């Protein structure tokens, strides 16, 4: 089971801010996960945009990392507060 978090405008597309999923066995990297979630929520390439950052267990990752040890995966659009 892995918790997936969608922030900012991504949650408008997925219609949810988080979901906990039992992933199929063959979804074991970030890229595979993005494709799988893209189909599940009809997101087009929304998760694949360069501006979307990915965090595994609250740490930023850059390439096509393994998600074998992921309890929490977050997808983060460009940020900005203040």
């Amino acid at each position: 089971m892995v918790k997936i978090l969608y922030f900012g405008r991504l949650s408008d597309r997925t219609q949810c801010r988080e979901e906990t999923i039992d992933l199929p066995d063959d979804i074991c990297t970030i890229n595979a996960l993005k494709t799988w979630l893209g189909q599940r929520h009809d997101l087009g390439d929304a998760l694949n945009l360069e501006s979307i950052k990915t965090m595994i267990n609250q740490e930023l990752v850059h390439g096509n990392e393994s998600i074998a040890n992921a309890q929490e995966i977050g997808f983060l659009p460009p940020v900005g507060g203040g």
Partner: protein
Amino acid sequence: MVIISATEFDPGAHLNSFMDASQNAGAIASFIGRVRGEHNEVESLYLESYADVTERGIENAESEARARWPLIDVLVIHRIGTMRSGDPIVLVATASEHRRSAFEACDFLMDYLKTEAIFWKKQTTKSGSEWVEPRAADYQDNKRWS
């Protein structure tokens, strides 16, 4: 100290407490950002954070500010949730022995909050809601420190 607050906060009261706690500081700079009227078009602003990740990020920025300038104390309060026109969004206060350090560290922390802090901002006007991302000017300001 970093506070992420889901409820409205009182900037003046926090600033006074901050001053009381750092009696040796001769110089206190602060910045308050709040929901603008934009000619009364903005009906509400919603801010979302990523729990501890957001807080840790701001704490790191605070550490960086303390490494760059001789600061006695730092306070960052940032709202999340729904705010209305006039509500405070952020208070940054820096206490130092000297005014230049206090000003620069406050300015630096605001640049971090505007461009790198992990918040997402949704603005609701009469014509609907949209997520707002930093302006080019904000990124430009932030580059001054690198």
